[in-house]
């Protein structure tokens, strides 16, 4: 178990910054998610923690020991790679054994460790199969067993489930979290899937352009996104954004949407009105109304029926606005009036 600390971590490839001046603390036993779009530097950050990449500048500490220039093995990290990478020419048991090749354990101890981790992940009957004979979920379990068999201080996962189908991912998500809590190993998990991030992490670090934009618990990230990027990246269906400006008319604050000039009446307690240019609200925080007390009138562009609820996609001001409703009686090209819950809106 270890606490991981990144201090001003920077990694450059040529003159391109993959990670820029990053500071991050992962607490002991924590499950931290690095979330971000592809190319945001999350995998590079993970590779630096693993020791697969040497940072251009900055430092990495494990339990206050500087490990910045240590090779991967001496850091005692275990890593699961994209699509649960295994050695293709070795069977599962040999694959797991490879994790222990460079340790000082006796053969008996190795044997015991392997059978322990195999029984934790329930893969005893797969031990003599080669990776190409395994299903996606089995590969994932074997790769996880290979990682935990070393009893690492830090457990690093690089989009391990990206190649799996949705149903399997759902099962494996809870399995992995359950295992992490049982072993209480500090874990860093990289993903671009915000559902994975929300459901698995103790905390989420949302990355963009080589930097952490916000770090916090899933609820904090969801309810109080600090930047427009975080707001747009986390949540499904995504948040709606309206560009415009806030004006003060006779003591009432109005949000005037660019180009359509529609006005939205805001609550009275507005501050810093000159700094905000974007109004944001989640799809579930607007409702369809029939009276004249509405904020926007929209034309329906598409309807996605999820069974429990429907997502109405409307075209507005060259952009899409999504509303969640339970009423199935709408059709494409219908006009609807919506009212936004002013207590839930955010400004950027």
């Amino acid at each position, binding site marked *: 178990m270890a606490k991981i600390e990144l201090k001003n971590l920077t990694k450059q490839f040529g003159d391109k910054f993959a990670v820029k001046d990053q500071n991050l603390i992962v607490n002991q036993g924590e499950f931290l998610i690095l979330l971000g779009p592809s190319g945001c530097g999350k995998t590079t950050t993970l590779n630096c923690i693993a*020791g697969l990449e040497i940072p251009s500048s900055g430092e990495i500490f494990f339990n206050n020991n500087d490990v910045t220039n240590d090779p991967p093995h001496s850091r005692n990290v275990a890593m699961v790679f994209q699509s649960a990478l*295994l*050695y293709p*020419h070795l069977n599962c048991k040999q694959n797991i054994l490879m994790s222990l*090749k460079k340790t000082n354990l006796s053969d008996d101890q190795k044997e015991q460790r392997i059978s322990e981790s195999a029984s934790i992940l329930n893969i005893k009957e797969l031990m003599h199969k080669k990776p190409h004979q395994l299903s996606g979920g089995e590969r994932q379990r074997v790769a996880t067993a290979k990682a935990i068999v070393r009893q690492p201080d830090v457990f690093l996962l690089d989009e391990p489930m990206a190649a799996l189908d949705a149903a399997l991912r759902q099962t494996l998500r809870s399995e992995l979290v359950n295992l992490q809590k049982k072993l209480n190993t500090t874990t860093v998990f990289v993903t671009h899937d915000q559902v994975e991030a929300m459901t698995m992490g103790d905390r989420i670090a949302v990355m963009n352009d080589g930097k952490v934009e916000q770090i916090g618990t899933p609820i904090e990230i969801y309810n109080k996104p600090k930047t427009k990027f975080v707001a747009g990246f986390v949540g499904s269906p995504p948040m709606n954004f309206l560009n415009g400006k806030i004006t003060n008319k006779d003591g009432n604050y109005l949000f005037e949407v660019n180009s359509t000039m529609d006005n939205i009446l805001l609550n009275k307690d507005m501050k810093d009105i000159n700094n905000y240019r974007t109004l944001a609200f989640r799809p579930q925080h607007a409702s369809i109304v029939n009276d004249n007390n509405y904020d926007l009138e929209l034309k329906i562009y598409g309807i996605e029926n999820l069974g429990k609820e429907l997502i109405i996609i409307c075209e507005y001001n060259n952009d899409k606005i999504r509303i969640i409703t339970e009423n199935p009686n709408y059709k494409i090209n219908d006009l609807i009036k919506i009212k936004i819950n002013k207590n839930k809106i955010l400004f950027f």
Partner: protein
Amino acid sequence: MYLGLFVLLIWTLTPIYWYLKLAFLTPNNINIFPPVFLPDDMHFGAFFNIFGYDYTTADNILLPASGQASQVIRGLLNSLFVSIISTIITMIVIVPLAYTFSRLTFRFKTALLLTILLSVALPPISTLIPFFAMYVKLGLTGTKFGLIIVTLTITIPFVTWMLIGYFRNIPPIEKLGRIDGYGRFETFLKVFIPVSKNGILVAAVISFIFSWNEFTYASILVNGTKAVTFPTSISSFLFQHPHPQHLSASLFLGMIPPFIVAVFLQRYISEMNIVDPLR
């Protein structure tokens, strides 16, 4: 569809059949017109002749040994020697070379790779005269050593190109190896090479076939010397009193190694995909 296949088969197999048939015939039978599809009195006489033995057929016709026998035997041994040594050297060079170009990033990679690949595009004949002039000065004409050097200039670029494509499709197991505590070179040696052994084997075989079949350089640099190779020794039949059965029997022998290789390795060869190496 099938008609096309049929035409193609006829197109490729007829000349082979025609020539190989001659190996089993007596000179008299060869001259029969119209030719028979498969004559009854076939025999292995020509194969004895080209190795320097007389052969008496069932109806007591004496087929004398070929005057080229010493060249053929020497050619076979030399070809075997040159091909094996070239293949070994090729493999020692190209496995790290292809690895470097397919799995590592460094400056001027594309330019350097192009330089290597450019030599694939050069027809051997264009470098023949410079090589010859140089070899005369260095005293390398008519030596196996000189021939090996020249063979390497053909095998190395081509097989590197093949292997780059294959290496590129191997998953990033180096990372796995490094997490498991192997150094960079150890990972290459103990993890990467075992994983890619099929591709490396195919590359070795292709390199062997290329050396075995090499004719352009050998015909100029070693023909008629002690270092003569099998293909060039066959070609010297052309300038003798015509013995089509001897030429044909030699061709038959020359086809055996590539044939065995193709049959046993076609499964692996299809795994190799020669892709755009600059991708």
